[in-house]
């Protein structure tokens, strides 16, 4: 219980700092730490595949993309003052209180069938997976063409 509470507080705090900080690199690092904590939360919810995917895509891909984007489009960042940081921390603590204390009444869900991840992916969502493969390849080709076209023009 204490681990989940600590993860929730960490998630809210890093989310607030990712939006609140003025330096883009610090914001991306804060987002990265939020995604790592989210991955740990998935592990604690007994969802290891989602956790590994979150870790790989969240940190390995998205954070690197954002850092690369920031480097390629460099602008002069303002510095966040320590007073603003303390205010952000205070806002994060206040936002964490309803997460820890509050409860929402949810109906207990019961299912007879226990699916494994592979059967859930390939038996139930096979067309989705294949379509998604095509989407990912199309996106990769699109991004390459977009950047190549820009390079050719410049």
């Amino acid at each position, binding site marked *: 219980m204490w681990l989940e509470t600590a993860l929730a507080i960490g998630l809210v705090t890093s989310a607030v700092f990712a939006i609140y900080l003025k330096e883009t690199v610090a914001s991306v690092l804060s987002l990265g730490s939020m995604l790592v904590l989210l991955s740990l939360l998935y592990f604690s919810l007994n969802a290891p595949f*989602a956790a590994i995917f979150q870790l790989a895509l969240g940190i390995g891909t998205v954070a690197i993309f954002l850092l690369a984007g920031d480097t390629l489009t460099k602008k002069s960042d303002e510095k966040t003052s320590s007073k603003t940081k303390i205010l952000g921390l205070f806002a994060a603590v206040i936002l964490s209180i309803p997460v820890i204390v509050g*409860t929402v009444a949810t109906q207990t869900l019961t299912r007879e069938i226990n699916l494994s991840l592979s059967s859930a992916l390939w038996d139930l969502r096979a067309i989705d997976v294949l379509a998604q493969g095509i989407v990912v390849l199309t996106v990769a080709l699109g991004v390459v063409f977009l950047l190549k076209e820009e390079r050719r023009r410049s």
Partner: protein
Amino acid sequence: MDYIILSVTILGIGIVGLVTKNDLIKMLIAVEMITAAATMNFVVFGSLMEDSLGQAFSILALSVDACVTAVALALAVAIYKKLKIRDVRELSELKEEPSEEENQMVEEN
């Protein structure tokens, strides 16, 4: 502790960031936060039902999320290389004003 409130809190922080920030990278960070909050619900409800369908959906959602980020960043880099702009307010100021002929045509119609 309730995961739905956690998810709603992160979603709210992301929406506030998307509305208040003008920097393209910061807006992408906010979008990333919103999708993370939405994906969390798949895993939480899948965990409550004790089957792997929620994990399967979350994996599909995460892949789409990475694709969205890649395309948006490529567009941001392309815009920056062409116009040297990272602020969306400056982008909206680039909208071309209608010429006098176009104004006359609109008045005639």
